[in-house]
Protein backbone atom coordinates (compact mmCIF):
# COMPACT_ATOMS: atom_id res chain seq x y z
CA UNK A 1 0.00 0.00 0.00
CA UNK A 2 1.25 3.48 -0.81
CA UNK A 3 2.48 5.44 2.20
CA UNK A 4 0.96 8.81 3.03
CA UNK A 5 2.69 12.05 2.11
CA UNK A 6 3.15 15.34 3.90
CA UNK A 7 0.89 18.28 3.00
CA UNK A 8 3.72 19.87 1.04
CA UNK A 9 4.28 16.68 -0.90
CA UNK A 10 0.56 16.46 -1.57
CA UNK A 11 0.59 19.99 -2.97
CA UNK A 12 3.44 18.99 -5.28
CA UNK A 13 1.37 15.96 -6.35
CA UNK A 14 -1.63 18.20 -7.07
CA UNK A 15 0.56 20.44 -9.22
CA UNK A 16 1.96 17.42 -11.06
CA UNK A 17 -1.52 15.97 -11.62
CA UNK A 18 -2.91 19.23 -13.04
CA UNK A 19 0.03 19.45 -15.44
CA UNK A 20 -0.23 15.80 -16.46
CA UNK A 21 -3.97 16.04 -17.15
CA UNK A 22 -3.52 19.31 -19.01
CA UNK A 23 -0.76 17.85 -21.21
CA UNK A 24 -2.84 14.75 -21.93
CA UNK A 25 -5.96 16.71 -22.84
CA UNK A 26 -4.12 19.34 -24.90
CA UNK A 27 -2.28 16.66 -26.86
CA UNK A 28 -5.60 15.04 -27.77
CA UNK A 29 -7.60 18.29 -27.89
CA UNK A 30 -10.31 16.21 -26.21
CA UNK A 31 -11.43 16.18 -22.61
CA UNK A 32 -12.71 18.17 -19.67
CA UNK A 33 -10.08 20.22 -17.86
CA UNK A 34 -12.20 22.43 -15.56
CA UNK A 35 -14.29 19.52 -14.19
CA UNK A 36 -11.10 17.60 -13.52
CA UNK A 37 -9.32 20.50 -11.83
CA UNK A 38 -12.04 21.12 -9.27
CA UNK A 39 -11.49 17.66 -7.77
CA UNK A 40 -7.69 17.39 -8.01
CA UNK A 41 -7.01 17.79 -4.28
CA UNK A 42 -9.73 15.23 -3.51
CA UNK A 43 -8.08 12.70 -5.85
CA UNK A 44 -4.62 13.42 -4.46
CA UNK A 45 -5.89 13.01 -0.89
CA UNK A 46 -7.52 9.69 -1.79
CA UNK A 47 -4.67 8.19 -3.78
CA UNK A 48 -1.60 9.72 -2.14
CA UNK A 49 -2.80 11.10 1.19
CA UNK A 50 -3.40 7.76 2.85
CA UNK A 51 -7.19 8.12 2.77
CA UNK A 52 -7.98 5.26 0.39
CA UNK A 53 -6.30 1.87 0.45
CA UNK A 54 -4.45 1.68 -2.85
CA UNK A 55 -1.96 -0.97 -3.91
CA UNK A 56 0.62 0.09 -6.49
CA UNK A 57 0.99 -2.34 -9.40
CA UNK A 58 -2.16 -4.16 -8.19
CA UNK A 59 -5.32 -2.48 -9.57
CA UNK A 60 -7.41 -5.53 -8.65
CA UNK A 61 -6.10 -6.12 -5.13
CA UNK A 62 -9.09 -7.55 -3.20
CA UNK A 63 -8.59 -5.27 -0.19
CA UNK A 64 -8.37 -2.05 -2.20
CA UNK A 65 -10.94 0.66 -1.65
CA UNK A 66 -13.20 1.13 -4.66
CA UNK A 67 -13.19 4.66 -6.06
CA UNK A 68 -15.81 5.75 -8.60
CA UNK A 69 -15.82 9.05 -10.44
CA UNK A 70 -19.52 9.26 -11.10
CA UNK A 71 -19.09 12.61 -12.89
CA UNK A 72 -17.68 10.54 -15.70
CA UNK A 73 -16.66 13.38 -17.99
CA UNK A 74 -13.82 14.02 -15.53
CA UNK A 75 -12.84 10.38 -14.91
CA UNK A 76 -9.89 10.82 -17.25
CA UNK A 77 -8.28 12.78 -14.41
CA UNK A 78 -7.39 9.37 -12.97
CA UNK A 79 -5.24 8.22 -15.87
CA UNK A 80 -1.98 9.92 -14.84
CA UNK A 81 -2.46 8.54 -11.32
CA UNK A 82 -2.98 5.01 -12.65
CA UNK A 83 0.10 5.28 -14.81
CA UNK A 84 2.07 6.54 -11.82
CA UNK A 85 0.82 3.60 -9.72
CA UNK A 86 2.00 1.21 -12.42
CA UNK A 87 -1.46 0.05 -13.47
CA UNK A 88 -0.41 0.52 -17.10
CA UNK A 89 2.64 1.94 -18.92
CA UNK A 90 2.95 5.73 -18.77
CA UNK A 91 3.22 5.98 -22.56
CA UNK A 92 -0.50 5.16 -22.75
CA UNK A 93 -1.18 8.78 -21.68
CA UNK A 94 0.15 10.02 -25.02
CA UNK A 95 -2.41 7.80 -26.77
CA UNK A 96 -5.38 9.27 -24.86
CA UNK A 97 -8.53 9.06 -27.09
CA UNK A 98 -6.51 7.65 -30.01
CA UNK A 99 -7.65 4.52 -31.87
CA UNK A 100 -4.48 2.68 -30.87
CA UNK A 101 -4.78 3.68 -27.20
CA UNK A 102 -6.86 2.14 -24.40
CA UNK A 103 -7.66 5.39 -22.58
CA UNK A 104 -10.95 6.88 -23.68
CA UNK A 105 -12.35 10.34 -22.96
CA UNK A 106 -14.96 8.58 -20.84
CA UNK A 107 -13.59 5.90 -18.55
CA UNK A 108 -14.21 2.37 -19.70
CA UNK A 109 -14.42 -0.25 -16.96
CA UNK A 110 -11.81 -2.39 -18.71
CA UNK A 111 -9.08 0.16 -17.92
CA UNK A 112 -7.05 -1.10 -14.95
CA UNK A 113 -8.00 1.05 -11.96
CA UNK A 114 -11.46 2.02 -13.24
CA UNK A 115 -14.04 0.28 -11.05
CA UNK A 116 -17.11 0.87 -13.18
CA UNK A 117 -18.21 2.62 -16.31
CA UNK A 118 -19.22 6.29 -16.06
CA UNK A 119 -20.14 9.08 -18.39
CA UNK A 120 -23.86 9.16 -17.92
CA UNK A 121 -24.59 10.94 -14.66
CA UNK A 122 -26.33 9.63 -11.58
CA UNK A 123 -25.10 6.02 -11.44
CA UNK A 124 -22.16 6.11 -9.03
CA UNK A 125 -23.90 6.36 -5.67
CA UNK A 126 -26.06 3.31 -6.38
CA UNK A 127 -23.08 1.35 -7.69
CA UNK A 128 -21.07 2.37 -4.64
CA UNK A 129 -23.95 1.31 -2.39
CA UNK A 130 -23.89 -2.12 -4.04
CA UNK A 131 -20.13 -2.40 -3.46
CA UNK A 132 -20.49 -1.32 0.19
CA UNK A 133 -23.38 -3.71 0.83
CA UNK A 134 -21.54 -6.64 -0.75
CA UNK A 135 -18.46 -5.85 1.34
CA UNK A 136 -20.50 -5.93 4.53
CA UNK A 137 -22.20 -9.19 3.57
CA UNK A 138 -18.83 -10.73 2.75
CA UNK A 139 -17.20 -9.56 5.96
CA UNK A 140 -14.71 -7.42 4.01
CA UNK A 141 -13.72 -3.99 5.22
CA UNK A 142 -12.93 -2.06 2.06
CA UNK A 143 -14.82 1.18 1.39
CA UNK A 144 -16.48 2.72 -1.65
CA UNK A 145 -15.68 6.36 -2.49
CA UNK A 146 -17.91 8.05 -5.05
CA UNK A 147 -17.19 11.50 -6.46
CA UNK A 148 -20.29 13.17 -7.84
CA UNK A 149 -20.66 16.60 -9.38
CA UNK A 150 -22.97 19.15 -7.84
CA UNK A 151 -24.80 19.43 -11.17
CA UNK A 152 -25.07 15.65 -11.10
CA UNK A 153 -27.18 16.02 -7.97
CA UNK A 154 -30.00 17.15 -10.26
CA UNK A 155 -30.39 13.47 -11.22
CA UNK A 156 -33.23 11.84 -9.29
CA UNK A 157 -31.41 8.51 -9.22
CA UNK A 158 -28.83 10.03 -6.85
CA UNK A 159 -31.53 10.57 -4.27
CA UNK A 160 -33.03 7.11 -4.71
CA UNK A 161 -29.59 5.71 -3.95
CA UNK A 162 -29.07 8.14 -1.07
CA UNK A 163 -32.27 6.86 0.56
CA UNK A 164 -31.13 3.27 0.18
CA UNK A 165 -27.63 3.81 1.56
CA UNK A 166 -28.92 5.61 4.64
CA UNK A 167 -31.62 3.01 5.34
CA UNK A 168 -29.07 0.21 5.16
CA UNK A 169 -26.54 2.17 7.21
CA UNK A 170 -23.81 1.76 4.63
CA UNK A 171 -21.10 3.53 6.57
CA UNK A 172 -18.45 2.14 4.20
CA UNK A 173 -19.85 4.41 1.52
CA UNK A 174 -18.42 7.93 1.16
CA UNK A 175 -19.84 10.36 -1.40
CA UNK A 176 -17.79 13.43 -2.20
CA UNK A 177 -19.85 16.18 -3.83
CA UNK A 178 -17.59 18.32 -6.00
CA UNK A 179 -19.41 21.58 -5.30
CA UNK A 180 -17.88 23.69 -8.06
CA UNK A 181 -21.10 25.68 -8.55
CA UNK A 182 -21.22 25.23 -12.32
CA UNK A 183 -23.07 23.10 -14.80
CA UNK A 184 -22.69 23.47 -18.58
CA UNK A 185 -25.04 26.42 -19.00
CA UNK A 186 -23.98 28.43 -15.99
CA UNK A 187 -24.18 28.64 -12.22
CA UNK A 188 -26.23 25.90 -10.60
CA UNK A 189 -27.92 28.41 -8.33
CA UNK A 190 -29.14 30.32 -11.40
CA UNK A 191 -30.14 27.21 -13.40
CA UNK A 192 -31.96 25.32 -10.67
CA UNK A 193 -31.13 25.97 -7.06
CA UNK A 194 -29.26 23.17 -5.25
CA UNK A 195 -28.56 24.85 -1.94
CA UNK A 196 -28.73 23.90 0.82
CA UNK A 197 -26.95 20.77 -0.47
CA UNK A 198 -25.59 19.79 2.93
CA UNK A 199 -29.08 20.00 4.43
CA UNK A 200 -30.45 17.86 1.60
CA UNK A 201 -27.93 15.03 2.15
CA UNK A 202 -28.45 15.31 5.88
CA UNK A 203 -32.23 15.09 5.46
CA UNK A 204 -31.69 11.89 3.48
CA UNK A 205 -29.97 10.35 6.50
CA UNK A 206 -26.30 10.91 5.70
CA UNK A 207 -23.60 12.30 7.96
CA UNK A 208 -22.49 15.47 6.23
CA UNK A 209 -19.32 17.50 6.50
CA UNK A 210 -18.33 20.48 4.40
CA UNK A 211 -14.76 21.07 3.32
CA UNK A 212 -12.61 23.42 1.30
CA UNK A 213 -11.99 21.08 -1.61
CA UNK A 214 -8.68 22.72 -2.47
CA UNK A 215 -7.23 22.65 1.06
CA UNK A 216 -5.61 19.40 2.18
CA UNK A 217 -6.00 20.09 5.90
CA UNK A 218 -9.70 20.73 5.42
CA UNK A 219 -10.16 17.63 3.23
CA UNK A 220 -8.19 15.42 5.64
CA UNK A 221 -10.33 16.65 8.49
CA UNK A 222 -13.47 15.78 6.50
CA UNK A 223 -12.17 12.32 5.60
CA UNK A 224 -11.35 11.70 9.26
CA UNK A 225 -15.11 11.35 9.81
CA UNK A 226 -15.06 8.00 7.99
CA UNK A 227 -15.97 5.36 10.54
CA UNK A 228 -17.18 8.01 12.95
CA UNK A 229 -20.69 8.62 11.64
CA UNK A 230 -22.79 6.48 13.96
CA UNK A 231 -23.41 4.03 11.11
CA UNK A 232 -24.46 6.62 8.54
CA UNK A 233 -22.97 6.92 5.08
CA UNK A 234 -20.79 10.00 4.79
CA UNK A 235 -21.28 12.88 2.37
CA UNK A 236 -18.47 15.38 2.01
CA UNK A 237 -19.50 18.61 0.35
CA UNK A 238 -16.20 19.76 -1.14
CA UNK A 239 -16.48 23.44 -2.01
CA UNK A 240 -14.36 23.91 -5.09
CA UNK A 241 -13.63 26.11 -8.07
CA UNK A 242 -14.23 24.68 -11.52
CA UNK A 243 -11.02 25.04 -13.50
CA UNK A 244 -8.93 25.67 -10.37
CA UNK A 245 -5.35 26.52 -11.30
CA UNK A 246 -5.96 28.19 -14.66
CA UNK A 247 -7.16 31.73 -14.03
CA UNK A 248 -9.20 32.20 -17.20
CA UNK A 249 -11.01 28.91 -16.69
CA UNK A 250 -11.76 29.37 -13.00
CA UNK A 251 -15.47 29.73 -12.38
CA UNK A 252 -16.13 30.19 -16.10
CA UNK A 253 -18.76 27.81 -17.44
CA UNK A 254 -17.82 28.33 -21.07
CA UNK A 255 -14.58 26.32 -20.67
CA UNK A 256 -16.37 23.03 -19.86
CA UNK A 257 -14.88 21.28 -22.90
CA UNK A 258 -13.41 24.16 -24.89
CA UNK A 259 -9.76 24.11 -25.97
CA UNK A 260 -7.54 27.21 -25.52
CA UNK A 261 -5.70 28.85 -28.43
CA UNK A 262 -1.90 29.10 -28.50
CA UNK A 263 -1.66 32.25 -26.38
CA UNK A 264 -3.97 30.97 -23.69
CA UNK A 265 -2.30 27.58 -23.83
CA UNK A 266 1.03 29.21 -23.00
CA UNK A 267 -0.56 31.23 -20.23
CA UNK A 268 -2.17 28.10 -18.76
CA UNK A 269 1.11 26.17 -18.83
CA UNK A 270 2.87 29.06 -17.11
CA UNK A 271 0.23 29.24 -14.38
CA UNK A 272 0.29 25.49 -13.84
CA UNK A 273 4.07 25.51 -13.44
CA UNK A 274 4.09 28.28 -10.84
CA UNK A 275 6.22 27.14 -7.86
CA UNK A 276 4.17 26.18 -4.79
Amino acid sequence: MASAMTVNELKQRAKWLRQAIFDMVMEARQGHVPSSFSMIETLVALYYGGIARIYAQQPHHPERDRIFISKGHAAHALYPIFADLGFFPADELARFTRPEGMLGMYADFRIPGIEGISGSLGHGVGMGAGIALAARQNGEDHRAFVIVGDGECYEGSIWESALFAAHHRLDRLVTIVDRNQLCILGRTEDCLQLDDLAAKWSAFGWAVVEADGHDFASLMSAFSRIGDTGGKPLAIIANTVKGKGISFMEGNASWHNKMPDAALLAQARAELSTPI
Partner: protein
Amino acid sequence: MRLMRDATIDTLCAAARKDRDILFISADFGAAALDALRRDLPEQFLHVGICEQNMVDLASGLALAGKQVFLYAMAPFITARCYEQTKCALAAMNLPATLIAVGVGLGYDHATLTHFTPEDMAIMRALNGIEIWTPADDLVAEALAHLCVTQPAFRYIRLERSPLPRVYSDPTAVLASGVGVLRNGGGTAIVACGALLENALMAADMLAAEGISTTVIDLARIKPQPTAALVEALAGCSRIVTVEEHMREAGLGSAVLEMLADAEAMRPLRRLGLTDGFEVKNGHRADLHRAYGLDATAIAAAVREGRG
Protein backbone atom coordinates in the same frame (compact mmCIF):
# COMPACT_ATOMS: atom_id res chain seq x y z
CA MET B 1 -52.19 -23.71 -11.79
CA ARG B 2 -48.86 -22.41 -10.56
CA LEU B 3 -47.91 -18.85 -11.34
CA MET B 4 -44.72 -18.39 -13.33
CA ARG B 5 -43.40 -16.02 -10.69
CA ASP B 6 -43.87 -18.63 -7.95
CA ALA B 7 -42.13 -21.29 -10.04
CA THR B 8 -39.27 -18.88 -10.64
CA ILE B 9 -38.91 -17.66 -7.08
CA ASP B 10 -39.19 -21.15 -5.53
CA THR B 11 -36.33 -22.24 -7.74
CA LEU B 12 -34.21 -19.18 -6.95
CA CYS B 13 -34.98 -19.51 -3.24
CA ALA B 14 -33.79 -23.12 -3.21
CA ALA B 15 -30.59 -22.06 -4.96
CA ALA B 16 -30.13 -19.08 -2.62
CA ARG B 17 -30.28 -21.36 0.42
CA LYS B 18 -27.12 -23.05 -0.85
CA ASP B 19 -25.37 -19.95 -2.16
CA ARG B 20 -25.28 -16.78 -0.08
CA ASP B 21 -24.01 -14.78 -3.06
CA ILE B 22 -27.45 -15.04 -4.71
CA LEU B 23 -29.43 -11.87 -3.99
CA PHE B 24 -33.05 -11.11 -4.89
CA ILE B 25 -34.09 -7.46 -5.21
CA SER B 26 -37.69 -6.32 -5.41
CA ALA B 27 -38.96 -2.84 -6.24
CA ASP B 28 -42.06 -3.23 -4.07
CA PHE B 29 -43.43 -6.21 -5.95
CA GLY B 30 -44.44 -9.51 -4.38
CA ALA B 31 -45.41 -13.12 -4.93
CA ALA B 32 -46.69 -15.86 -2.67
CA ALA B 33 -43.38 -17.67 -3.03
CA LEU B 34 -41.48 -14.56 -2.00
CA ASP B 35 -42.65 -14.87 1.62
CA ALA B 36 -40.36 -17.84 2.32
CA LEU B 37 -37.37 -16.08 0.79
CA ARG B 38 -38.01 -12.92 2.81
CA ARG B 39 -38.53 -14.88 6.02
CA ASP B 40 -35.71 -17.40 5.73
CA LEU B 41 -33.07 -15.42 3.85
CA PRO B 42 -33.46 -11.80 4.96
CA GLU B 43 -29.83 -11.04 4.08
CA GLN B 44 -30.44 -12.16 0.51
CA PHE B 45 -33.69 -10.28 -0.05
CA LEU B 46 -33.62 -6.53 -0.63
CA HIS B 47 -36.67 -4.33 -0.85
CA VAL B 48 -35.36 -1.20 -2.54
CA GLY B 49 -38.62 0.72 -2.45
CA ILE B 50 -40.29 2.05 -5.56
CA CYS B 51 -36.90 3.06 -6.89
CA GLU B 52 -36.20 1.19 -10.11
CA GLN B 53 -33.27 3.42 -11.06
CA ASN B 54 -31.44 2.69 -7.84
CA MET B 55 -32.41 -0.97 -8.08
CA VAL B 56 -30.38 -1.30 -11.28
CA ASP B 57 -27.40 0.83 -10.20
CA LEU B 58 -27.28 -1.05 -6.90
CA ALA B 59 -27.43 -4.37 -8.74
CA SER B 60 -24.52 -3.19 -10.86
CA GLY B 61 -22.37 -2.55 -7.78
CA LEU B 62 -23.38 -5.88 -6.25
CA ALA B 63 -22.58 -7.71 -9.48
CA LEU B 64 -19.21 -5.94 -9.75
CA ALA B 65 -18.54 -7.31 -6.25
CA GLY B 66 -19.31 -10.84 -7.43
CA LYS B 67 -22.92 -11.22 -6.33
CA GLN B 68 -25.44 -13.00 -8.52
CA VAL B 69 -28.35 -10.59 -8.65
CA PHE B 70 -31.99 -11.09 -9.61
CA LEU B 71 -34.08 -7.93 -10.06
CA TYR B 72 -37.84 -8.22 -9.81
CA ALA B 73 -40.63 -5.77 -10.63
CA MET B 74 -43.70 -5.20 -12.76
CA ALA B 75 -42.81 -5.40 -16.43
CA PRO B 76 -43.33 -1.74 -17.41
CA PHE B 77 -41.20 -0.47 -14.55
CA ILE B 78 -38.24 -2.84 -14.78
CA THR B 79 -37.89 -2.07 -18.50
CA ALA B 80 -38.75 1.44 -19.65
CA ARG B 81 -38.61 3.19 -16.27
CA CYS B 82 -34.94 2.35 -15.64
CA TYR B 83 -33.84 1.69 -19.21
CA GLU B 84 -30.86 4.02 -19.14
CA GLN B 85 -29.59 2.44 -15.93
CA THR B 86 -29.85 -1.00 -17.53
CA LYS B 87 -28.03 0.26 -20.61
CA CYS B 88 -25.14 1.87 -18.72
CA ALA B 89 -24.79 -0.01 -15.45
CA LEU B 90 -25.54 -3.55 -16.67
CA ALA B 91 -25.36 -3.87 -20.47
CA ALA B 92 -22.30 -1.69 -20.99
CA MET B 93 -20.33 -3.85 -18.55
CA ASN B 94 -22.06 -7.11 -19.56
CA LEU B 95 -22.78 -7.93 -15.93
CA PRO B 96 -24.52 -11.25 -15.23
CA ALA B 97 -27.71 -9.88 -13.68
CA THR B 98 -31.22 -11.16 -14.39
CA LEU B 99 -34.18 -8.83 -14.86
CA ILE B 100 -37.42 -10.64 -14.02
CA ALA B 101 -40.51 -8.84 -15.29
CA VAL B 102 -44.06 -9.80 -14.39
CA GLY B 103 -47.10 -8.89 -16.44
CA VAL B 104 -45.68 -8.41 -19.92
CA GLY B 105 -47.79 -7.24 -22.83
CA LEU B 106 -51.40 -6.59 -21.87
CA GLY B 107 -51.12 -8.64 -18.67
CA TYR B 108 -52.30 -5.77 -16.49
CA ASP B 109 -55.47 -5.61 -18.56
CA HIS B 110 -57.54 -3.30 -16.35
CA ALA B 111 -54.62 -0.98 -15.60
CA THR B 112 -54.26 -0.14 -19.30
CA LEU B 113 -51.64 2.05 -20.94
CA THR B 114 -49.22 2.82 -18.10
CA HIS B 115 -48.98 -0.87 -17.19
CA PHE B 116 -48.89 -2.33 -20.70
CA THR B 117 -45.53 -3.08 -22.32
CA PRO B 118 -46.20 -2.55 -26.03
CA GLU B 119 -42.53 -1.58 -26.46
CA ASP B 120 -40.55 -3.83 -24.12
CA MET B 121 -39.23 -6.26 -26.72
CA ALA B 122 -38.23 -3.36 -28.96
CA ILE B 123 -36.18 -1.60 -26.33
CA MET B 124 -34.81 -4.60 -24.48
CA ARG B 125 -33.63 -6.50 -27.53
CA ALA B 126 -31.69 -3.42 -28.60
CA LEU B 127 -29.51 -3.78 -25.50
CA ASN B 128 -25.95 -4.95 -26.09
CA GLY B 129 -25.43 -8.58 -25.05
CA ILE B 130 -28.78 -9.33 -23.46
CA GLU B 131 -30.58 -12.68 -23.61
CA ILE B 132 -34.40 -12.50 -23.68
CA TRP B 133 -36.87 -15.25 -22.84
CA THR B 134 -40.66 -15.52 -22.65
CA PRO B 135 -41.67 -18.78 -20.94
CA ALA B 136 -44.88 -20.38 -22.19
CA ASP B 137 -45.73 -22.10 -18.91
CA ASP B 138 -44.57 -22.60 -15.34
CA LEU B 139 -42.30 -25.51 -16.24
CA VAL B 140 -40.37 -23.38 -18.72
CA ALA B 141 -40.19 -20.58 -16.13
CA GLU B 142 -38.76 -23.01 -13.59
CA ALA B 143 -36.23 -24.39 -16.06
CA LEU B 144 -35.21 -20.85 -16.99
CA ALA B 145 -34.61 -20.00 -13.34
CA HIS B 146 -32.31 -23.03 -13.13
CA LEU B 147 -30.51 -21.83 -16.23
CA CYS B 148 -30.01 -18.37 -14.72
CA VAL B 149 -28.52 -19.88 -11.56
CA THR B 150 -26.25 -22.38 -13.26
CA GLN B 151 -25.19 -20.29 -16.27
CA PRO B 152 -25.20 -16.65 -15.11
CA ALA B 153 -25.59 -14.11 -17.90
CA PHE B 154 -27.25 -10.77 -18.59
CA ARG B 155 -30.89 -11.79 -19.09
CA TYR B 156 -34.39 -10.38 -19.31
CA ILE B 157 -37.13 -12.87 -18.36
CA ARG B 158 -40.67 -11.95 -19.43
CA LEU B 159 -43.16 -13.62 -17.07
CA GLU B 160 -46.91 -13.75 -17.43
CA ARG B 161 -48.90 -12.22 -14.63
CA SER B 162 -51.61 -14.93 -14.78
CA PRO B 163 -51.14 -18.69 -14.80
CA LEU B 164 -51.05 -20.28 -18.23
CA PRO B 165 -51.99 -23.87 -19.11
CA ARG B 166 -48.97 -26.13 -19.52
CA VAL B 167 -47.90 -26.60 -23.10
CA TYR B 168 -44.72 -28.56 -22.42
CA SER B 169 -44.30 -31.82 -20.51
CA ASP B 170 -40.53 -31.40 -20.73
CA PRO B 171 -39.01 -27.96 -21.33
CA THR B 172 -35.51 -29.28 -22.09
CA ALA B 173 -35.74 -28.96 -25.87
CA VAL B 174 -37.22 -25.46 -25.97
CA LEU B 175 -34.62 -24.27 -23.50
CA ALA B 176 -31.85 -25.70 -25.64
CA SER B 177 -32.98 -24.22 -28.94
CA GLY B 178 -35.12 -21.21 -27.96
CA VAL B 179 -37.90 -22.44 -30.25
CA GLY B 180 -40.74 -24.84 -29.43
CA VAL B 181 -43.03 -26.52 -31.98
CA LEU B 182 -46.45 -26.98 -30.38
CA ARG B 183 -48.31 -28.17 -33.53
CA ASN B 184 -46.62 -29.48 -36.61
CA GLY B 185 -49.13 -29.59 -39.43
CA GLY B 186 -47.21 -27.67 -42.05
CA GLY B 187 -49.16 -25.12 -44.08
CA THR B 188 -49.22 -21.75 -42.39
CA ALA B 189 -47.12 -21.31 -39.25
CA ILE B 190 -48.47 -19.23 -36.39
CA VAL B 191 -45.59 -17.79 -34.35
CA ALA B 192 -46.20 -16.30 -30.89
CA CYS B 193 -44.91 -16.45 -27.34
CA GLY B 194 -46.30 -16.42 -23.81
CA ALA B 195 -50.01 -15.81 -23.32
CA LEU B 196 -50.81 -15.53 -27.02
CA LEU B 197 -49.79 -19.14 -27.60
CA GLU B 198 -53.16 -20.04 -26.07
CA ASN B 199 -54.92 -18.01 -28.78
CA ALA B 200 -52.67 -19.48 -31.44
CA LEU B 201 -53.52 -23.01 -30.34
CA MET B 202 -57.25 -22.18 -30.28
CA ALA B 203 -56.96 -20.78 -33.80
CA ALA B 204 -55.17 -23.96 -34.88
CA ASP B 205 -58.04 -26.03 -33.45
CA MET B 206 -60.65 -23.90 -35.23
CA LEU B 207 -58.78 -24.25 -38.51
CA ALA B 208 -58.25 -27.98 -38.03
CA ALA B 209 -62.03 -28.39 -37.74
CA GLU B 210 -62.22 -26.79 -41.20
CA GLY B 211 -59.58 -29.15 -42.55
CA ILE B 212 -56.81 -26.55 -42.53
CA SER B 213 -53.66 -27.78 -40.84
CA THR B 214 -51.18 -25.37 -39.30
CA THR B 215 -47.92 -25.27 -37.39
CA VAL B 216 -47.76 -23.42 -34.07
CA ILE B 217 -44.36 -22.15 -32.95
CA ASP B 218 -43.33 -20.79 -29.57
CA LEU B 219 -40.56 -18.22 -30.02
CA ALA B 220 -39.41 -18.57 -26.42
CA ARG B 221 -36.08 -16.82 -26.93
CA ILE B 222 -36.10 -13.66 -28.98
CA LYS B 223 -32.42 -12.87 -28.38
CA PRO B 224 -29.89 -14.13 -29.24
CA GLN B 225 -32.02 -14.88 -32.25
CA PRO B 226 -32.51 -18.64 -32.66
CA THR B 227 -32.36 -18.33 -36.44
CA ALA B 228 -31.37 -21.89 -37.35
CA ALA B 229 -33.92 -23.44 -35.00
CA LEU B 230 -36.69 -21.19 -36.30
CA VAL B 231 -35.90 -21.91 -39.94
CA GLU B 232 -35.85 -25.63 -39.16
CA ALA B 233 -39.22 -25.40 -37.38
CA LEU B 234 -40.64 -23.57 -40.40
CA ALA B 235 -39.34 -26.15 -42.87
CA GLY B 236 -42.73 -27.40 -44.07
CA CYS B 237 -44.49 -24.03 -43.89
CA SER B 238 -45.29 -21.84 -46.88
CA ARG B 239 -46.62 -18.82 -44.95
CA ILE B 240 -46.30 -17.27 -41.52
CA VAL B 241 -48.64 -15.32 -39.24
CA THR B 242 -47.06 -13.72 -36.18
CA VAL B 243 -49.09 -12.43 -33.26
CA GLU B 244 -47.92 -10.31 -30.33
CA GLU B 245 -49.13 -7.99 -27.55
CA HIS B 246 -46.60 -5.43 -28.75
CA MET B 247 -46.45 -2.67 -31.31
CA ARG B 248 -45.96 -4.21 -34.73
CA GLU B 249 -42.65 -2.36 -34.91
CA ALA B 250 -39.54 -4.04 -33.53
CA GLY B 251 -41.26 -6.80 -31.61
CA LEU B 252 -41.71 -10.52 -32.19
CA GLY B 253 -42.94 -10.29 -35.77
CA SER B 254 -40.06 -8.03 -36.71
CA ALA B 255 -37.61 -10.44 -35.08
CA VAL B 256 -39.04 -13.31 -37.15
CA LEU B 257 -38.61 -11.22 -40.31
CA GLU B 258 -35.03 -10.40 -39.37
CA MET B 259 -34.20 -14.06 -38.84
CA LEU B 260 -35.79 -15.08 -42.13
CA ALA B 261 -33.89 -12.34 -43.94
CA ASP B 262 -30.60 -13.34 -42.34
CA ALA B 263 -31.17 -16.95 -43.32
CA GLU B 264 -32.37 -15.98 -46.80
CA ALA B 265 -35.49 -17.97 -46.01
CA MET B 266 -38.11 -15.26 -46.58
CA ARG B 267 -41.68 -16.23 -47.25
CA PRO B 268 -45.05 -14.45 -47.03
CA LEU B 269 -45.55 -13.16 -43.51
CA ARG B 270 -48.37 -11.29 -41.80
CA ARG B 271 -47.85 -9.50 -38.49
CA LEU B 272 -50.71 -9.15 -36.00
CA GLY B 273 -49.94 -6.71 -33.22
CA LEU B 274 -50.79 -3.34 -31.75
CA THR B 275 -50.95 -0.44 -34.15
CA ASP B 276 -50.51 3.32 -33.68
CA GLY B 277 -53.45 4.88 -31.92
CA PHE B 278 -54.77 1.65 -30.43
CA GLU B 279 -57.61 2.67 -28.17
CA VAL B 280 -57.81 2.22 -24.43
CA LYS B 281 -60.49 -0.36 -23.65
CA ASN B 282 -61.88 -1.50 -20.35
CA GLY B 283 -62.13 -5.23 -19.99
CA HIS B 284 -60.37 -8.50 -19.43
CA ARG B 285 -57.41 -9.54 -21.51
CA ALA B 286 -59.68 -11.63 -23.75
CA ASP B 287 -61.77 -8.52 -24.43
CA LEU B 288 -58.62 -6.62 -25.34
CA HIS B 289 -57.49 -9.41 -27.66
CA ARG B 290 -60.83 -9.18 -29.46
CA ALA B 291 -60.63 -5.39 -29.65
CA TYR B 292 -57.05 -5.37 -30.95
CA GLY B 293 -57.40 -8.29 -33.36
CA LEU B 294 -55.20 -10.69 -31.42
CA ASP B 295 -57.79 -13.34 -30.53
CA ALA B 296 -58.14 -16.82 -32.03
CA THR B 297 -60.78 -15.62 -34.50
CA ALA B 298 -58.49 -12.90 -35.84
CA ILE B 299 -55.51 -15.25 -36.05
CA ALA B 300 -57.60 -17.88 -37.88
CA ALA B 301 -58.88 -15.22 -40.28
CA ALA B 302 -55.32 -14.12 -41.05
CA VAL B 303 -54.37 -17.70 -41.82
CA ARG B 304 -57.40 -18.22 -44.10
CA GLU B 305 -57.00 -14.91 -45.95
CA GLY B 306 -53.48 -15.66 -46.98
CA ARG B 307 -54.33 -19.03 -48.40
CA GLY B 308 -56.51 -17.52 -51.13
